[in-house]
Structures are given as C-alpha cells and as structure tokens.
C-alpha cells in the first residue's frame, strides 16, 4: 500500500494501520470491564457520550493477548459502519510515529505466517531497522 501509516507497539511487535481509519489516540483510558462478555472484549469507554467497545487486538487475531490494565493507551477507529453503537478501539502498549510508506517497501505476508494471523496482515513493510506489520483493522473487527 501507499500512504501514511500510524505505527504502534503491541506486545513486542511494531504494528501499523492505515491512518485514514483512525479517529483518535488516547494515552490513558479508563474503561469499564464487561463481565460475562467474550474474552476479546476489554471493556467499554465513554468517548464524549459515545460508548466505545475496546477490543483486544491480539485476541481478535487469534493469539494469546495479555490482560489489559486501566489507563492504557488506546487507538480509536473511525466508525465505518455508521452504527453508533459499534464504535471500536483497542489498547496498545505505546503509540509510535506516522510513517509514509511506498508500495516498493511492502511485501505480502510471508508464506510461513499462516492461519488466522496471516489473514489480518495487509502487508509487511521493510523499514530500515525493523519490520512493520500493517494490519487491516476492518478485517479484524468485521469478522
């Protein structure tokens, strides 16, 4: 892909998403846990009157994610379905930079990244000192 990507740290890895999908980033979010909900639900958060569902990104893509504590940083996505109750966000370890990427830097998910995880990777960007995994949040949250 080409364009601006918001990068963030999540459980050791450097991940990124298309910045046009991002509504905002918050550095400290106090959420309300929802007992008896699926385990990929982190909780609910009141973003200026909108109830946002916080999801565990790692668990959503079928990996073991950690249990999130209060006051984590979060990325909130723009509401793409138009239904106000389906606003989502996900906690991250730390937000990173916004980087411009070009098509030639990108490669499709390598063959050995299999199964569920691979489906959600849009592409892998070869940055100078690190690999940036661009995920497709729509695929993740629409499943």
């Amino acid at each position, binding site marked *: 892909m080409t364009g601006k990507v918001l990068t963030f740290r999540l459980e050791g890895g450097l991940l990124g998403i298309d910045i046009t999908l991002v509504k905002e980033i918050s550095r400290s979010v106090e959420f309300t*846990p929802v*007992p008896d909900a699926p385990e990929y639900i982190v909780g609910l958060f009141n973003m200026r*009157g909108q109830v946002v569902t916080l999801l565990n990104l790692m668990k959503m893509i079928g990996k073991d994610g950690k249990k999130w504590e209060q006051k984590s940083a979060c990325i909130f996505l723009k509401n793409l379905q138009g*239904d106000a109750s389906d606003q989502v966000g996900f906690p991250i370890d730390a937000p990173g930079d916004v980087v411009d990427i070009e098509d030639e830097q990108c490669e499709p998910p390598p063959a050995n990244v299999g199964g569920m995880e691979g489906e959600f990777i849009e592409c892998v960007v070869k940055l100078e000192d690190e690999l940036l995994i661009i995920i497709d949040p729509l695929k993740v949250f629409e499943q």
Partner: protein
Amino acid sequence: MLQNEEFIHEFVEEAMTNVEKAESGLLKLDDASEDLEQINTIFRAIHSIKGTAGFFGLKKIVELSHSMENVLGELRNNRTKIDRELIDLLLASNDCLKGMILEVGRSEECDISKYTIKLAAAFERGRLIAEKQTDKLSDNDSTSERIIIEEGRRHGHKLYRVRLLLNEDLGKKNITPIKFFNKIQSIGNIVDSKTDLSSIEDLDKCLNSEITFTFLFTTVLEKGLLPMALDIPESRIEELDSNTKTEDLLNNAGKTQPFVQHKSGLHNQYKKEEQEKEAIDKKNQPVVFEDSVRVHVSLLNNLLNLASEMVLGRNQLLRAMERYRKDISGIEPILQNIDRITTELQEKVMQTRMQPISNVFNKFPRIIRDLSRKLGKEIELQLEGTEVELDKSIIEALGDPLTHLVRNAADHGLELPEIREQKGKPRVGRIVLKAYHEGGYVNIDIVDDGAGINLEKIKKKALEKELASKSDVASMSDQEVLQLLFKPGFSTAERITDVSGRGVGMDVVKTNIEKLGGTIEIFTSAGAGTTFRLLLPLTLAIIPSLIVEVEKQKFALPQANLQEIVRIRPGEAARKIEYVHNSEVLRLRGRLLPIVHLADVLGLVRTYKDPLTGETKEDRRKTLYDRRRMHFANAETDISNDSYAIESRRSDLNNIIRILVLKIGSRRFGVAVDAIHGSEEILVKPLSKYIKNSKCYSGVTIMGDGKTAMILDPDGIISKANLRFVEDGEDKITIESKENEERLREQQNLLLFKCSGPETFAIDLSMVSRVEEIKRADIDKVGDKEFIKFRGSSLRVIRPEDYLPVAKHESMQDRLYVIVPKLVKHPIGILIEKIDDTVLTSIRLNEEVLSAKGLMGSAIINKTMVLLINMYELFELADPHHYAAALGRKAREEKVVLVAEDTPFFQRMERSYLEGAGYKVLLAQNGREALQFLQENKVDVVVSDINMPVLDGLELVRKIREDDRLRNLPVIAVTSLTGEQQKKAGFEAGFDFYEFKLDRAVLLDRIEQALQERRRAV
C-alpha cells in the same frame, strides 16, 4: 446520486399525512354537516396527493385522487349534497388510496374501478345540477390551464416553463421533486407539470435514469430572480408568452410524450370547472409558511445523546470549579447560567421526541364509526387529553393495543341500543378515551358505559379452557378474576366476530403494554361499564434505575422490575438464608425466594478484604451462608490466628448482605450484590454487536460520573442462572400471601423507637414515609428550632421529649434517626435516637395511665410499656401555627359526624381530630352499626373505613346511596387501601371523597368541603 428509496419514502410520508388529514376531515363532515373550510382542507389534501403522485408515474393514485377531487369540488361549490352515502364512498376511496400509498410499489396493480365509477357517477349528478344553474360550461374552448394563466395575468404574473433534469438539477442538490414542487408553490401557482418517463419501464429505474420534469407555472417574480428563488440554473427557465396555445405549453418543451399528466383525461371536460375553483382558492389564500420541519429521528437521537453528554460535562465543570467559585470574580453567574441552560437544553431536546397522543387517538373516530355500523350499535366517542405527550416510540407502539381495547369496548362492552333502552340507559353508548398525567406516568383510560364485565362468565370460561382450577377460581378476588382476561387463549365473546376476538387476545395487549414499561388495570362495575387503564412511562429512553456494585464494578438495574431490597445483617444471615441442596433461599414473608449472587451470574471472582493484612483475597466460600457459618465453624476447630481474622470479618459491616428482590411477571427471585449506590435516571444506549450475545445485559449507559455501566437484564439473569420457575405454583402462593396480607392489614404495623430517655415510643407505620439516618452534625439550628437537609430542602425536626411528659437526657450519640411523616401538609421530622423494632400486632390501648396532649395512650407490646404518639397532636404542639385547629368551632358544634371504623386506634385518632375541630362524633364499629345509627340519628357527614367486619365500607355507602332519605349524605372514605384500583372502586360505590389514613388536615378539609357542597345541594 439519487436515493430513490428516500424519494419514495418521502412521498409516502407526505401522502400519508394528507390521507389522514382527508380522513379526519371527512369524519368531521360526517357530523358537522356542510363546513366549507373542512371541505377545502380535504380537497387540498387530496389535490396534493394527486400532484406529488404524478411525479412518480403513479397513475392509479393520480386517477383515484382525481376522481375524489372532482366530487369534492362539487361539494365545495354546493352542487352536491353531502350525505352519509357519499361520505362513505369518499372514505372508502380514501382507504383505497391509503392502501395504494402504503404499498406504493404495487399500486399500479390495484383495481380502483369500483371507486372511480361511483365517484364519477356522484360527480355527474353534481354536474347536472351545475348545468342547470349556470351555463358556464358552454365556454368549451377554455381549459383549466388557461384559467390559471389568465387568473395569474390579471395579478401581474408571468408565465414560465422550467425544465429540469432530475439527477442533474435536483439529485445533486439533494432536493426531491416534491420539495421542488412545494418551492414553486411558495412563489407562484403551478399550472401544469409533466414527467417525461418515455424511456423508463418501472418505478425503480425511473429514479436512476435521467428524467426530465417540466413545470409550467405563473409568478410575479422576474425571470432574473428565479434562478435564485428556485436554486436552478437560469438556462432551465423559459419565459412564455401567456398567449401560447395551451397544447403547446408543455409539449413543445422537448420530448412530446405526455406519459403522466396531472389532469388525467378521464374527466377532461369538467376539469376546467375545478381548476377555476382552485385558482380562486389560491388567490384568496395567503402563502402559508410551514411552522414545522421534518427531521430524521436519528438526528434527534444524536441530539439527545449530545445533550445528555453536555449535562455530564456541565456536572464535571461545576465540580472542578467548585473550589474557585469564590476566587474568580464573576464566574459564579456564568456557571449558574451554563447550569440552567444545559438543563433547559436537555429538556427541550427530550421534548422533540415527544408527540401528542392525538396521533394515536385520531384514528378512533373512524374506527368507531365503522364499528357502530357493523355492530348495529350507536356509539359516541369522546377523546380527552389529546394534547398529552409521550415519547415517539411509545406513541407508535400504542396503536395496536389501543385499537384492540377500543374494539373490545365497542363489541363486548356496549350493549345493543334496544337492550340499553330496556335498562334505562341512553340508546347511544359512550366510549371515552382519556389521557392524563399522574405521578410521572401517563395514564390512558378506555372507558365504556356498557354492561360491565361478567365475572361469573370469566370464571366459567377459565374453567372451560382449563386456564385455572376450580379451587383457584373459588378463592380469587374480583381483580384476580379480571386478570384471567390476560391469560393467553382467553376470549369472552360468546361468538367470535370479525370485530374482536380474533384469537389474538388481551394477552397480546398486555405483553405489548408491558414491553413499553407500562401496566394495565381493569375496573368494572356490573351494568355501569368497564374501564381499562394503561399506565405508561413518559419516555423509553430514560429509565429510573438502581446503581448496584459487585466486585468494585457498577451496574444499573432498571427499577421497573425491582420489588424491594432486603438487608441482612451478619448475625441474622443464618436465620434467614437457608438451603435447598446447594441453592440459597430466603424466607420472605412466608415464601421461599431463590437467591443468586450477581458476581456468580456474571462470572466474577468473589473477593473479600482481609482485615488483618488489608489484602483482597479470593473468596472461596461458595455461598452467602458459608460467609457466616462455615468459617466460624472452622475457626473453632482450627485454632490458629486465623480465627481472629474470621471473627472480625464476621462483624465487618461490609458483610451485610443486600438482596434485590426482582419480579418479572410471576417470577420472583433475589439477586445478592455488594453495595447499592442509590438510584439514577439513566439514558439507555444499545449494546455494541460485540457484546450482544451476553444475556445478562439489556444495554449500556453513561452514569453521572462519566463512566459507562452495563444495564442488567433480569430476564437474562434468570436464564443465565438457570432459574426455573413453576408458574402455576407461584401464582397460588402469591394469592395466598396476598390474602395473608389482607388479613393482617387491620392489625397495626408499629415502629418502636427510643428517644434520649428510657421510654419506648411507637408510631403507626402507615403514617411514616421513611426513616432517615443522620449524624448529629447534620442538624442545623435556627433560633430554637432544628433543621436537617432532606431531599434538597430543609426539614424541621423536633424531639418528642421536648413536648411530652417524658424523661429527657443530654445524649452525645452521633448517629440519629429522623422519622419523616407521610401524608401531611407541613412535614416535620421526628428526631429519635434508636430504632427498636417494627411489630405487627393488634394492641389494646390504655388511655388512662398516661394521658397528655401528643400521646394516644400506652400499650404493652412484648412485655414492655410503649407510648403511642399522636403525631398530629405532637406537631400541633411543635408548630401551632400550621397545625392548630383554628377554624370556627362554633358552626361545627351542631354538625354530627358518624365515624364507621373497626380499629380502635383509628377510632380514637379520628375522634380526637374531629372533636378537636368541634364536631360531634358518633362511633360505629362496622357498616351495619353505622346504618343503624343513620336510621336513628341526624348525621351530617359519614367518615367510613373500607375494610370492616360484618358490613364493609363499600357496602355501607351503596346502602346509603340506595336509601332515599340518605342518598345525598356526604360519605368520605378514610382507608389504608392506597391502590388506585381501590380508590376507583370506592368512587364507584358512591363515596364522595376517598382519603388515605390518616392526615388530619386533609380529613378536616374534606369534611368541611363535603358540608359546604351539601349545603349547596340542599
């Protein structure tokens, strides 16, 4: 990009409004004979449907509305007489029109010929008369279009033709053809319009391909101004010479296929006539500006959300600024202003969702009209309170249940006219639909003056249908028998008519009303009629709820399902919580209540705080009972230093168990929670799709502190916790326990307490609104009077020992209680130090041992001497200004009040009040005794209890009303039965007033009022 759905939607919406307008107009014509204004309204409504339908090529709709319009035109010119038959025809046509509009996609398939032929015949009749009267029609050359043009020219109008490309000119600007049509009408008169649909096969496609609209209209505006006025490019507008041949007006404008034209050819030769009228009509009418705007509901919902959010923001701001209020000069008024405006804003936004109930009510005149013909009954419908407003969603959901009830009233409730006459009632039956506010709810009464519901018939039916057993039926009260109506599969009509009793019964009505958070009640009186009462919340979006906490998490529980809260103190738990295998149950007033812990239901790990280390540990005990007992037992066997911890944990106040008793239908269960944070009005938001599968929640809300909280769904909790209820058994127990309560009612429920001295006092609980716990520091002194803050205002508190002949001590106890009295005009709190108990007992009151003003006397309860406080005398002592009986004693001395009351306590109270006010009092123990007194003595007013042995109050008043000599005697019910149903029953039996025990001021007021009214009557 065109949203064709939206166009059609807008058309349907607008056309429906017009159809309804026409319908209500026609119905008014029905009874109000020839009202020109009314006919005009109908005419305009139908005309406007015709106009807009033309755009969409809805030929059938155009044709039918045109035929109707013709007839209406004749009516308007007084050429046709209005009669029932004609109105029937118009109504039927209007219905057909409505049908076609609702099914707009299939409207072309509809067969309208039977209406158009009849309408044409009616029109013909009118025209023949017209020809006799005038020879205007001879001028055959002039067409209707010409007339409008001529008419316009006389007023300096110019003739224009506008050709628009639907997509290019309108779609892009999000203007619908209908809006454009209206726009032109606002600046001038439309002569004709045409839609070129030659290239199009069906309706759907029509909205997506390029279509040309041609409008011909006259206006005073210059050509240069039109692009601005209509928001279209100048190139689309053409000024025509008003002498242009009529046929050419539209047709030389490009393609020449008049596929759809406003004036269908059917009655071409007459349309001139009507057009002329229309033109005159328009001339006489000022341009009407709409005073309302159509807004999408989602926008209103967004606004509502934002307003609520604003309230939260305001609260946060006020909290944050609290400290600086004094320091920043001028900030105070600004904050106050924001505070006020925000509240107002929220209220107004809430109001936007409110709609008058007339939206539902208005369809009933028509229904009743049809019904009365079908059933051969004469029915008069009365609508009251049509301006009462309810949330849109409730209004919408109310239509079906109300229709059902109204149909029932007409069909089953009202008798046939002959039968009514035999019974000495007016031939015409009455049905009243009445909406009014009461206690935060909107009530809707559906009242008929028919035969009343035959209870025996219901019982028989219930037995037949095996909805209840014989023994059940025998023990049922009247109300309970009526409730059988709501059982699925019940229908009282002897035969099933097509009017009501179509299998979907009252049970559906009840379910629908309950879905709205409402309830339904029935009152009936044989021979006099039946009332169905719906109690509805004002709005669905905001519900009162209780905020509860479990494991540090807060949840909102809608109060609709909450029956009561039971607190069990540590020492009592073993006494009250018991076990059936591993399940916990609570004995609550003789019934077993299943109990679940909210934490368990939600899958939260229960924890406790270790009092020694302050750590939070997992609570491995599986039951509430364990909390108390098992560990105590462990402590005895395992003598370690743990025992201390357990000991103190046992006494830890946090170990109070709080159980919310919930009830859904007949299912009752208890939910144990850790803490209760009071109630809050919450705004319900829908669950996100990710959590929708969690059964326990019905929604989510944002609380006052800005945090989100899940809204618990009691139904979901039942299924999550696998609670299985045996429905029938439950019902029976309810009935029994209700009977128990009835029986106990005449006993007294006393609150026992102590003040600073050693004496024990008692107050009847029926006079207590609540008992508030306060700290000594909460008491403010003003002069020698003391006040506390209670529900946002100050409440005066008094110490009984200051006014009564009892011991008084200086006490430094920090925790005090205030008894807040019920049903008094000028509440005064009673400050006490200790609550001993509440007991239910019948007491023997001794007035001799201790008599003083403010005391009723003494009694022995549980081997202790207890002083019964006469609250009103006490208040009189403390606040002579408000409580003293100041009014003319003398006039009253001649008046005799008969008090029928079986409870000695209330006898004494009422007697003391009445004698204190100067009346002469006669005491009767029951209804029969009272009747005897009435035969032997001259009595001015009767004050009667309702529940009495031998002959109860209702019977008493009925007997009084039957007696010729006593018929006009004022009778006041003074009772502890506070239900609205009982109140209603009381009025029906003949009471003039119905008051609750026992407010002295109100009782005296009522007697005074009754005497005055009587004086007038005599």
